[in-house]
């Protein structure tokens, strides 16, 4: 069970994480993109952090507002994708303030489905989806195996990191990196890296 306070904590931690990782993410995006992923994520999550002093009737409203804020402040490819993720994440949690491991699992699935619908990426396209997909599977497996939300998120983050690293050798087929053709191989996808950071932050804060 994670209380609404934990989700507030998560979003605050996320902003801090992205601020600290801005340079790293931009460096990844310089190699196969346009050198803005770090500042995009830092700007958007900082805007989300500014919401956190407000009052929200439930966790779902908080997450939905966070998603809309990302849509309105990030731009680029990652804005609609992460924005959609949070808006969809909110869906299954409507009316809830405390969230169980199973409920979060359903919400995560809705969020990742949103990413998929928006971006139409397939596994191996070298996008953030290559971190989301294994993370979701690992989360479900952990919960099925009896884990609570915290450890399950830890497993998800670990799987995301593996997915992220596995994007290295891939040739991109979606997003800006796809323009590079073969030259995109040998570099980690920036979005897969930020997804991993997001899940690591969740694992640190949602218990």
């Amino acid at each position: 069970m994670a209380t609404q306070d934990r989700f507030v904590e998560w979003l605050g931690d996320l902003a801090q994480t992205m601020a600290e990782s801005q340079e790293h993410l931009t460096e990844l995006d310089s190699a196969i993109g346009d050198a803005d992923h770090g500042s995009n994520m830092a700007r958007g999550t900082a805007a989300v952090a500014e919401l956190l002093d407000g009052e929200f009737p439930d966790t779902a409203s908080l997450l939905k507002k966070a998603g809309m804020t990302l849509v309105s402040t990030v731009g680029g490819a990652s804005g609609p994708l992460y924005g959609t993720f949070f808006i969809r994440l909110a869906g299954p949690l409507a009316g809830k303030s405390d969230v169980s491991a199973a409920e979060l699992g359903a919400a995560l699935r809705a969020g990742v489905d949103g990413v998929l619908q928006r971006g139409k990426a397939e596994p191996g396209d070298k996008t953030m989806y290559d971190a989301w997909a294994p993370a979701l599977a690992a989360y479900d497996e952990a919960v099925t195996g009896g884990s609570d939300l915290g450890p399950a998120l830890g497993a998800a983050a670990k799987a995301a990191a593996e997915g992220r690293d596995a994007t290295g050798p891939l040739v991109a087929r979606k997003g800006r990196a796809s323009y590079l053709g073969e030259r995109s191989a040998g570099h980690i996808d920036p979005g897969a890296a930020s997804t991993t950071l997001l899940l690591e932050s969740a694992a640190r804060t949602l218990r």
Partner: protein
Amino acid sequence: MKKLINDPKDVVVEALRGMAGAHPDHLRVDLDNKVIYRKDAPVKGKVGLVSGGGSGHEPMHGGFVGLGMLDAACAGEVFTSPVPDQMEAATQAVDGGAGVLHIVKNYTGDVMNFEMAAEMADADSGVEVRTVVTNDDVAVKDSLYTAGRRGVGVTVLLEKLVGAAAEEGRPLAQVADLATRINESGRSMGLALTSCTVPAAGKPTFELGDDEFELGIGIHGEPGRERKAMAPARELAEQLLEPILDDLPRSSGQPVIAFVNGMGGTPLLELYLMFNEVSTILEKANIPISRSLVGNYITSLEMAGCSVTLQTADDDLIHLWDAPVNTPGLRWGA
């Protein structure tokens, strides 16, 4: 990084403030939404044209707002697509009752954000929105295995041509079809001699040796398809034109609008020299140039390099090209 800026975070809004101050008679700038409007928008009965994209490509798009071209341009952060809220605000504000055309360059971010904006505009107010996605960059092959061709130089020509059509009072369906047809009959290819530096990143996106260039670049300072050995302008022009001519659908004898575009850091002297090389090649290939454009119009900050765009032309397009346009970046007949 050395730039004429204050805080990287404030670059876009401060530049917009400058644009507002420099063009008080022609433009109105919404600094909160970062949208540049034609002063007299909405123009009653005229199809509204909305474009936008990341900043750093100036004069595109904000410099193309005005009579005979765009009604509004949404400015994103540098090289980052603007957000749906901006596009929706612009769409509402320029609708003169005849609907709105979104002109979107084919980049995942731009497409997704404009998609969300069109959904919002429709849901909120019922403004009829049509969208054209430009994708003229022949550097991107195998578009099945990529995000598809990028929208580059044709975007500028399209905004001019379609802007003239809208100004004439053509209805939305016609304007949208024309836009599609223009996109389908133009092709571009670009090269970079240097990288550029995104203000928030603080250092060049890539490094390039003094004897190399990047062939097949886009407009976001990203590396190109291939790194090649530097060569004389004559050969560079050939390397740009060959894939364009291979791919451009045209009937024999059909004239083109030839567009040599600077990426921002290359002097006009060199752009005219490149235009001379392009003309020479086209002359040999028996392709008449009916109109031309040479200069910095769709740029990547201070990147050195250029792109070439060929757009096949017919009488209607030439008529639209010659029609008056009055924007900070492109102006004639007005």
